[in-house]
């Protein structure tokens, strides 16, 4: 014991001696001075400024110093967000999170995914737990105005649809008077269904369930004539049927559900960044730039001036957003253009939601994707 104490005593003294002479003056002093300034700055921004102004152009700085984009996602919607076998989030929505990470850090892994439930997603935004929410969130008046959030360009135009058996003879909602419909309880889906039927002067028999899996099973077992949900979900559910080819999704849409990225009110610059990354991804498809040819196009001199501007060869669009001039080149190379993202997750390889002729086609093909020009 005594020896041990003697030893520690010696160690302490030795440590003290070392400590006293160790801080090599130039090194320590320079470190100190550069850091002092930045630290004080960020702390004051984070703590003292009132809530509504905190994000004022500070969000991007905060994200950069954090080293990661914190992205609120859904953990259980086929094609949009789920865990794959490697334990990573994959899906249409999560790819837009990765696109943001590439735009800011040129690193698709610089994302911190926060799985959020429908109940807590807006609180997570308000309390600064996530930087952006890309989680099947419908753009509505009250969410935009009342909840203190802002919506970016719509990435997916969803809407409530109806799936029926092909041999049932139903070709539109008007045929379905008196039919039994499987529906999820307590959602706007239930209300939209009631509205759609009463607008047509028809009656129906709702069969209500708590989980979307349960509604699908009940429909598959023949307990109801129709299954209603958002069309994006219906497509996923159809693949779980015993015989997917026996079912069809009716053309009518009972509600408008534009889904897109959401962020907290008050940081326009951050909003611009998110919006224009999404717009850029759509423009890339419009101009035929894909992940495989983007490097080639950026290396040459594109004839289309908008392509040149998009890829950072002309103008200073990247700098205006606080990003690298060629950030869109990195984004497209890493996650691809809109069409590629769509095909990967929602195309025939994924949950198989037909794109041609739907709202989610480009404006040139009769859809609603009409990105503002990159000018």
């Amino acid at each position, binding site marked *: *014991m*005594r020896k*041990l*104490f*003697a030893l*520690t*005593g010696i160690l*302490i*003294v030795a*440590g*003290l001696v*070392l*400590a*006293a002479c*160790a*801080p090599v003056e130039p*090194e*320590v*002093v320079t*470190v*100190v001075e550069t*850091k*002092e300034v*930045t*630290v*004080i700055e960020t*702390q004051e921004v*984070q*703590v003292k400024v009132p809530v509504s102004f905190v994000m004022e152009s500070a969000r991007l700085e905060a994200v950069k110093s954090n080293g990661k984009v914190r992205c609120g996602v859904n*953990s*259980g*919607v*086929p094609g949009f967000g*789920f*865990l*794959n*076998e*490697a*334990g*990573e989030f*994959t899906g249409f929505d999560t790819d837009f999170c990765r696109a943001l990470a590439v735009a800011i850090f040129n690193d698709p892994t610089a994302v*911190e995914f*926060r*799985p959020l*439930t429908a*109940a*807590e997603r807006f*609180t*997570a935004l*308000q*309390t*600064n*737990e996530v930087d952006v929410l890309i989680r099947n969130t419908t753009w509505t008046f009250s969410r935009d105005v009342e909840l203190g959030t802002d919506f970016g360009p719509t990435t997916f135009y969803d809407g409530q649809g109806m799936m029926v058996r092909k041999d049932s003879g139903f070709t539109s909602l008007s045929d379905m008077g008196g039919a039994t419909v499987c529906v999820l309880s307590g959602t706007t889906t239930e209300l939209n269904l009631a509205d759609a039927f009463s607008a047509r002067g028809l009656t129906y028999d709702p069969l209500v369930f708590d989980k979307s899996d349960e509604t*699908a099973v009940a429909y598959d077992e023949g307990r109801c004539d129709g299954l209603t949900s958002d069309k994006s979900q219906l497509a*996923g559910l159809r*693949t*779980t*049927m015993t015989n997917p080819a026996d079912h069809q999704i009716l053309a009518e849409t009972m509600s408008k559900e534009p889904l897109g990225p959401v962020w907290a009110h008050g940081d326009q610059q951050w909003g611009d960044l998110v919006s224009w990354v999404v717009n850029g991804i759509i423009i890339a498809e419009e101009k035929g730039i894909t992940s495989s040819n983007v490097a080639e196009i950026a290396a040459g001199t594109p004839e289309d001036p908008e392509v040149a501007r998009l890829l950072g060869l002309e103008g200073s669009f990247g700098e205006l957003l606080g990003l690298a001039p060629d950030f869109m080149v990195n984004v497209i190379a890493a996650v691809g253009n809109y069409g590629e993202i769509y095909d990967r997750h929602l195309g025939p390889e*994924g*949950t198989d939601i037909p794109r041609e002729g739907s709202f989610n086609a480009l404006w040139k093909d009769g859809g609603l994707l009409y990105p503002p020009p990159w000018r």
Partner: protein
Amino acid sequence: MERAESSSIKPPVTSLGVLGWLRANLFSSWINSLLTILTLILIYFFGRVLVIWSVREANWSAVTNNLGVLTWGRYPNTEVWRLGVSLILIVLMGVLTWVQWSRQENQRSRPVLLAGWLMMPFVLTILIRGITMPTFRTIINNIGYYIVHPDVLIALDQTWRANAALTLTGLLAGASWMIFQKRRSRILTNVGALVVLALMVPLSTLSQPWIFGLRTPMAIPMLLTFGLCLLIGRAVGRSFTNMVGRAHVLGAIWMISLPIVVIVLTTFEVGNEAVDPVEALMIVPPNIWSGILLTLSLSVVSIAASFPIGVLLALGRRSSLPVVKGFSILFIELVRGVPLISILFMAQVMLPLFLPLGVNIDRVLRAMAGMILFTAAYLAEIVRGGLQAVRNEQVEAARALGLNEFLVTSLVVLPQALRAVIPPIMGQFVSIFKDTSLVAIVGLLDVLAVGQSVIKAREYLGAVREIYLFAGLFYFVFSYAMSQASRRLEARLGVVESE
């Protein structure tokens, strides 16, 4: 086991062997036979469906291909070995304890094992969560800040480190003064405390607001802290003056505390990668723990932490001190009046609204805190039931022997009280283990939520039954193991007859 030794006297056929058992248990009367046959028919029909489904139709690849995700979820694949090491450690400790505990003659290793178990939470936290360690260069440089540039500590908001170190050394120095008899030990411990104090001298000359925004030189709060801890240490030391080997124990505590003090003092980042603390084990924040890892860590932490809190609350509720009693009653009744799910919602959704912006408590830790408080309140009531079952004569007898209140409670009342309520306590533990699945509702990915998520991949869409069966099996295995363990414990403590 009895064996028939003589061939001439055979045991009655009806009481031995499979047939005998069947006859005694399943076909003892015509009504029993009828029930047996009916049950067998039912089992056959349901079992047939289940077997046919699981062999022919079930898509078990949804479970087998995702076993990794289901087990460790989003834990980085390169770091999964740390979970393996943790598991091996736990199993090793379990086996060692099992072997040693069943050998009555080997009593000496018990303190070692107990110490090992007490260390486990720290070791496991470090292994699973990761740790940042200061390098030698960081230590030297950061200590340099205390001497040359104490203003940096204030700028970085790291002055708490000084107070933490002073608290620890103050407590130890106070205790040492009472316990160490040898001069050399006394001098050495004083030197240790003096070194820490000396290190704080430059910092203590600077002023910083510390209480009610009062701005004074740091020396005042520091000396207050140190002095108070010295007094507390002395008091604690005095109460141990009769303990055998106390000097050795204190010496060991000093040995462990010195590196802790150094780490507390020096693990701050200044922004220079060359001298900043480095991650010795990559930090995997609890935020991304998921799957079985999350389910188990949530339940183990809530069980381990809620038990002592529950016992304290139960004692507090029976206390004669009005404040302690009032607080215990208020806490227990408030928490028991609210369902677990709303506590979890409060912790996940409401709590962040009350916290200052920029302060984010880890979501998993928030869920853990909620579950601990919830379980503690229920345990408190169970333990109180046990306390009431201990007859007052026991307390009187213990007092008559001259034991003080602390010893009466800890040696006489609590052991009997806890022994009486092992079944309901275990029931509460099993229930909180299963209740961990509620965290899925607040967006945490426990084993059930991960299961629901992985079947959203195209190739596994619709494999709901397989995943739920897997989850059900997982919960069953652990719950059954827990109730078996409880029964063994009861048998060992003689609460019920051993089977």
